[in-house]
């Protein structure tokens, strides 16, 4: 009896937030998905009762294979590179800083504050400062002239060069090969852990995917009528540097807390076993820090998908070379009045965030269960 009324009270207390989250988070996600399946944005899009028709997945099809949406595809490629470089850069630099501070240098708390400070700034502030620093005729480019050297000519935010180019028409094959490699890795692990039959079974999709990518793809229609090159735009380097500057202090704090949490006994034990400092960090500390790394990756990855403010402050709305799907979503929705396509871009971003967040939540939930 007591138990039951407890449950009822708990439910009553939770109910308001459940309802609010239900409406304002999940309801609106549903609304966005619905809008993305319509044609809202044709003609009188801003009328009181605009004419809205369901058109299925046409907006998504347009985004990924329409002649006029090449900017979206480049933005998507940019987003992947932003994520890749922000996560690896901030993790690497954060770890190095944490290890240096872990050695207990003089004035440690001062350094800690200095390194952590950029995180407390908003993206708009950092963006504005770094835009000045990276201006083509000033800031960093003029630094060498102080030592009598020629100025740097690199366009940190405006370069039109790009490297690692690939043809968007080949994207299905590239995806197939990547997924195939994942299956191959799974098969390899199953093989090693002893279940050889399961391993062989997992090898089958690898083979099918590889076969299709290397031979079968030429029989399926191309996703684009003409070849279209996309790659890593060098103009994004300026923005990546800024983002890493802002967030490596944060990973440093995470790692430093982790390093301080490792018991002295372990360090002593490692030292008795003859490990030098380098070996201690590489073989003892870093594996112990794995949960920190995991949560840092999750947080940085989803920040990199919300870089709107930083890019908007540094290069403005129309600098396509550094653009990001979030910027394009804003322009498509509010400048071009194409609400449906804007919603479709939002859903693509949402799915990308979910790819990072959901596995993390699931594993965190499982760990708590156990």
């Amino acid at each position, binding site marked *: 009896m007591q138990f039951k009324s407890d449950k009822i009270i708990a439910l009553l207390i939770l109910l308001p937030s459940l309802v609010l989250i239900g409406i304002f988070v999940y309801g609106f996600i549903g609304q966005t998905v619905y809008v993305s399946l319509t044609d809202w*944005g044709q*003609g*009188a*899009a*801003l*009328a*009181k009762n*605009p004419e809205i028709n369901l058109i299925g997945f046409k907006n998504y099809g347009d985004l990924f294979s329409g*002649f*006029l949406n*090449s*900017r979206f595809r480049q933005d998507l490629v940019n987003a992947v590179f932003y994520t890749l470089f922000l996560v690896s850069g901030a993790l690497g630099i954060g770890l190095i800083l944490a290890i240096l501070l872990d050695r207990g240098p003089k004035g440690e708390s001062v350094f800690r504050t200095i390194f952590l400070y950029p995180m407390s700034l908003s993206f708009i502030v950092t963006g504005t400062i770094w835009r000045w620093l990276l*201006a*083509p*005729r000033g800031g960093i480019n003029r630094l060498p002239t102080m030592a009598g050297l020629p100025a740097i000519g690199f*366009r940190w*935010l*405006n370069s*039109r060069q790009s490297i690692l180019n690939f043809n968007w028409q080949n994207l299905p094959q590239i995806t197939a090969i990547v997924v195939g490699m994942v299956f191959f890795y799974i098969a390899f692990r199953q093989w090693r852990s002893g279940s050889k039959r399961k391993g062989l079974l997992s090898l089958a999709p690898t083979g099918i995917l590889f076969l299709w990518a290397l031979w079968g793809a030429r029989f399926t229609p191309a996703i684009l009528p003409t070849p279209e090159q996309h790659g890593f735009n060098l103009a994004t380097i300026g923005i990546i540097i800024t983002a890493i500057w802002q967030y490596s202090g944060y990973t440093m704090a995470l790692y430093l807390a982790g390093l301080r949490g490792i018991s002295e006994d372990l360090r002593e034990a490692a030292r008795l076993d003859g490990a030098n400092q380098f070996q201690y960090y590489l073989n003892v500390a870093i594996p112990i820090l794995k949960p920190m790394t995991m949560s840092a990756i999750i947080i940085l990855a989803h920040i990199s998908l919300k870089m709107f403010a930083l890019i908007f402050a540094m290069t*403005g*709305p*129309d*600098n*396509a070379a550094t653009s990001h799907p979030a910027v394009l979503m*804003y*322009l*498509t*929705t*509010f*400048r*071009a*009045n*194409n609400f449906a396509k804007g919603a479709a871009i939002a859903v693509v971003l949402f799915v990308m965030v979910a790819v990072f967040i959901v596995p993390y939540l699931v594993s965190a939930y499982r760990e708590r269960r156990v």
Partner: protein
Amino acid sequence: MLNRKTIILVVISILVVGLLGTSLSVAAASHEDELSGELEIFSWWAGNEGPALQALIDLYEEMHPNVEVINATVTGGSGVNAKAVLKTRMLGGNPPDSFQVHAGQELIGTWVTAERMEDLTSLYKEQGWMDAFPDELIDLISTEEGIWSVPITIHRSNVMWYVPDNLDKWGVEVPSNWDEFLEIAPKLEDKGVTPLALGTNWTVNHLWESVALDVLGPDKWEALWEGELAFDSEEGIAVWEKLDKILEYVNDDYSSLSWQQATDLVVEGDAAFNVMGDWAAGYMSTVLELEPKEEFGWAPSPGTDGVFMLLSDSFGLPKGAPNRENTMAFLKLLGSKEGSDTFNPLKGSISPRLDSDLSKYNVYSQSAAEDFSSDRLVGSLAHGAVANEGFMNSFADVMEIFLNSRNPEKAATAAQAIAKQNGIQ
């Protein structure tokens, strides 16, 4: 006893008369200005343009002291953020009393087709504005169903800026068309001078429309927007080809410069010419404190003499505006000679009225006003007059395709495709 009664009666009657009197005088005062409540004006005028708007608001408050004016400004380059806020407010059923919108398709294509605006034809007739504004301008803000806003500013898009002394020094004349420019450009480069200063992405769109006006001429320019001339026709491709040649002679770091920095290149003698709207005159005379005609000169952009490519800010009356009467009074002030001549000299634009008091304006504006009243008027693309917002947004992408590929046919095809998509062709 009786005496006392009479006294009381007298006192009462005095009180009654007195009360009546005061209430009558209140009625008289409020008859003078029956407007009260609030007036919310939505714009993106801040910074340099803030004082001009404030002067207009001061004038309004003087005329209607009981109205509280709320100046709802959302800042950000050419209104991109203001427009986003405005759209969410309109969709949410919370319109401001009046909002800034570029005359032309930015008004018609976005708000009038959505049936969000009230027809102002009767106001135009009542105020005698049909003759006060040029017909081409009224056409820009009208459909067959009505007239939808009141213009307050005029800017010219097709202007080329230079420093007269520098041109003498380098021995070049102001080119009268782009072919002449292409002839003198190599000479300038030999002298180590950038022939044409250019700024960030949208200034390339701005240059495109000036080049197009030279290559096509005003009739075909208008045909383009009426769907009678295709973007991928021979003439349409010729515009991109000309632009391609011109871009050989611009500063190579253009995409990282603001329009002011591009103007600076001309002022500092690093570049010979710059094509920019006439807000550049305000920048050079007010911010850089240069003497018009002496220290900086201007001409219509090459090949567009006799044509005035205009853009205009206007204000309308949205349906469901909370304080309709106050807004009508505001619109009357905007369209009046007094309102227009208060605002424009401070902003550095010219008045859309043909009878403005030119003595209040600076040297550049006087010459622009003269051209405005005599030239052929056409609308600007880069500033919202001739094409709807869908096209304008996608045109930025087309320009990006062109700048990356430098392929005129490809750009023209893409322009035609977005014109189709946005209902122009």
